[in-house]
């Protein structure tokens, strides 16, 4: 009963501290929210939520002397005689049609005024010497991008498309330059072919890129199923991030709550507790219980918050409970364990900065390496060297719907870690205050 009173008192104190609240709930949810918005925009753009971006293009390009493009190399097989036309044709291509609405105009002023008068959101002005500059090895080619400053997302996509296109194009320039440097006089005439070849590759890449972008962003037709697909894609990115944040900060909370034992020693309230008719075992139990309870509240709140704010699916209730238990036990016992090695809270900075960050990062390698199978195998091995890794393992298992048996196995290992941490931590603290 008294142990519970002590834990309750600690819980009250924790939840009264703005700092603790920020680190327990604010930061993990905020980081996840950021990722959610970032990926969410890409995932939901253009389809159901955003209107098309209106683009006015003033293509003033007069063409360059040496520039010819084989129509076969252009997506959609359209004809392009200048670099400017190539840009226009890419933006006008059918694949982009869901995202942007292109209008052509013949002067830079009219393009800009269309944006100023809010008839369009973006003006793209391709200068007269665009092709020329492109052909010239020493020049840089620019496209003027003029946008409504109050908008961000639509123009950003168009910018991204253009940038990637131009990057490809500058690749052409580099290729030609290298070629010219290495070729002797007689081969110089081949430069055009080199450029052509490179352009072909680059445009093919561009086409891939569009597919990629459109795949994630464009549920054309707005079908329910597509929308769900987009959503689940988003969650498959954000879910593990939220999970990782939760594990990382649960360990942080475990360590900082367990540190309240040392803090109470320094604030003299612990010795005062020892002068009351409360056995030391009860006092210590209360402190440990409070670590456990605090982490427990944090994990449960984060799981529910992430579920309702972001719609993150944690897995079957049974699996999710087991993974939550894994996180709570390892995080709280680890906190007790490492604090038992500290002399005072001053050493705590090292603890949080060093041990928690390093082990936390190790444990989360798996999440960072999500996209690379090779790194993931290695990351798996490394992460399982630290308790956080096992917490993350339970998490990913539950989220990917693995069998409760395999999650239970992970939980057992987590509990074994916890038991060791707990026993060592309690033993050390007991000796300290004996």
């Amino acid at each position, binding site marked *: 009963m008294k142990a519970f*009173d002590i834990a309750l008192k600690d819980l*009250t104190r924790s939840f*009264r501290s703005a700092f603790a609240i920020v680190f327990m709930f604010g930061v993990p949810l905020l980081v996840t929210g950021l990722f959610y918005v970032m990926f969410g925009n890409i995932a939901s753009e253009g389809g159901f939520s955003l209107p098309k971006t209106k683009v006015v293009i003033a293509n003033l390009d007069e063409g360059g002397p040496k520039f010819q493009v084989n129509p076969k190399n252009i997506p959609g097989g359209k004809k392009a005689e200048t670099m400017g036309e190539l840009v226009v044709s890419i933006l006008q291509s059918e694949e982009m049609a869901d995202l942007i609405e292109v209008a052509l105009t013949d002067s830079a002023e009219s393009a800009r005024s269309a944006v100023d008068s809010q008839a369009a959101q973006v003006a793209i002005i391709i200068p007269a010497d665009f092709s020329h500059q492109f052909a010239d090895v020493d020049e840089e080619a620019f496209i003027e991008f003029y946008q409504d400053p109050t908008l961000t997302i639509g123009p950003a996509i168009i910018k991204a498309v253009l940038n990637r296109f131009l990057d490809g194009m500058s690749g052409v320039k580099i290729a030609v330059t290298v070629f010219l440097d290495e070729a002797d006089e007689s081969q110089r005439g081949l430069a055009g072919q080199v450029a052509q070849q490179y352009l072909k590759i680059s445009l093919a890449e561009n086409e891939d890129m569009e597919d990629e972008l459109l795949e994630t962003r464009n549920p054309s037709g707005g079908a329910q199923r597509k929308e769900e697909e987009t959503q689940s894609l988003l969650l498959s990115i954000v879910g593990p991030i939220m999970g990782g944040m939760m594990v990382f900060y649960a360990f942080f909370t475990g360590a900082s709550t367990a540190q309240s034992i040392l803090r109470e020693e320094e*604030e003299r*309230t612990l*010795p*005062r507790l020892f*002068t*009351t008719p409360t056995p030391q075992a009860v006092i210590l139990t209360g402190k440990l219980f409070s670590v456990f309870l605090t982490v427990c509240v944090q994990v449960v709140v984060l799981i529910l918050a992430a579920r309702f704010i972001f719609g993150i699916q944690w897995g079957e209730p049974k699996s999710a409970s087991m993974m939550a238990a894994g996180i709570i036990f390892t995080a709280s016992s680890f906190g007790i364990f490492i604090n038992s090695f500290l002399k005072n809270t001053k050493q705590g900075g090292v603890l949080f900065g060093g041990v928690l960050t390093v082990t936390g990062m190790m444990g989360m390698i798996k999440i960072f390496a999500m996209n690379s199978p090779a790194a993931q195998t290695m990351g798996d091995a490394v992460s399982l060297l630290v308790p956080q890794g096992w917490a993350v393992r339970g998490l990913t298992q539950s989220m990917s719907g693995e069998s409760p048996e395999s999650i239970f196995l992970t939980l057992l290992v987590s509990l074994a870690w916890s038991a060791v941490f707990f026993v060592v931590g309690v033993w050390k603290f007991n000796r300290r205050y004996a």
Partner: protein
Amino acid sequence: MSDLPAIEALDLRKSFGENRAVQGVSFQVNRGEIFSLLGPNGAGKTTTISMLSCLLRPDDGDARVMGRSIRSDPSGVKSVLGVVPQEIALYEDLSARENLTFWGKMYDLRGSKLKARVDEVLEVIGLRDRANERVGKYSGGMKRRVNIGVALLHKPQVVYMDEPTVGIDPQSRRNILDNVVRLKNEGMTVLYTTHYMEEAQELSDHIGIMDHGKLIACGTNEELVKLVGQQTRIDLTLNAHVESVAAAWREIEGVSHVAAENGVATALVNDSNLALPHLFEAASRLSARITSVNIREPNLEAVFLHLTGRALRD
């Protein structure tokens, strides 16, 4: 049973490494009295109290509190004790009421009884109006009062107060001193430590003077003062040459126990009327300007000076 002393310290000893903080302290505190341990910083008062409250295990010796041994029955001792630590030991992010409620639970109070006691204690320490403010926002004096209140919740038979009036405003100090007397009137035994001789003099039934880990004298105020005889204490504040003036004084007849510290020369004299002209004369001969003169009838300060050759100062 009831004529047993409330506290009985038997040759308590405690060292921290080479530092022999308490070197064999024995004393006895009767039931229902206020006993003060008076001594300068580092005398060993807190160490003694820590042993008596079972926080520190003595290297040697034992003590009985209400007949219970601190060695063999620490939980029995704790159950009759209320301890007011020297350092404020409260949760600053909780309110006074929350603090008292929590500590009350630690003293095994529950429910309506707890609530009633918390209200009573808030009344006693004069903080009822501000009970719901966080302790962190309180002044030093208010914190000290809560610090004391915590130890009174369970109406302990014996209360230890370790320098409860250090560094506080006169109003809080008055409140605290009045409360100590009130506790005594309610039948509690109070063990009080201080390095303010006025407090010890005002409050105590018995006083133990501590220095360098030893109890150098013990008795009632009157008994202790008798140790210095009828000597009067004279303090002269000088602008210079304090040491040489003190040295000159030692040669004067009827003057004993001369000390020089912080620009003040102190002497105990048998008859101030006879001695004063000589003291002044010595000062002006050495061209030390006298900036203030203080003549005091025998008191504990003089006792300390008499016993240790040093002034009892903060």
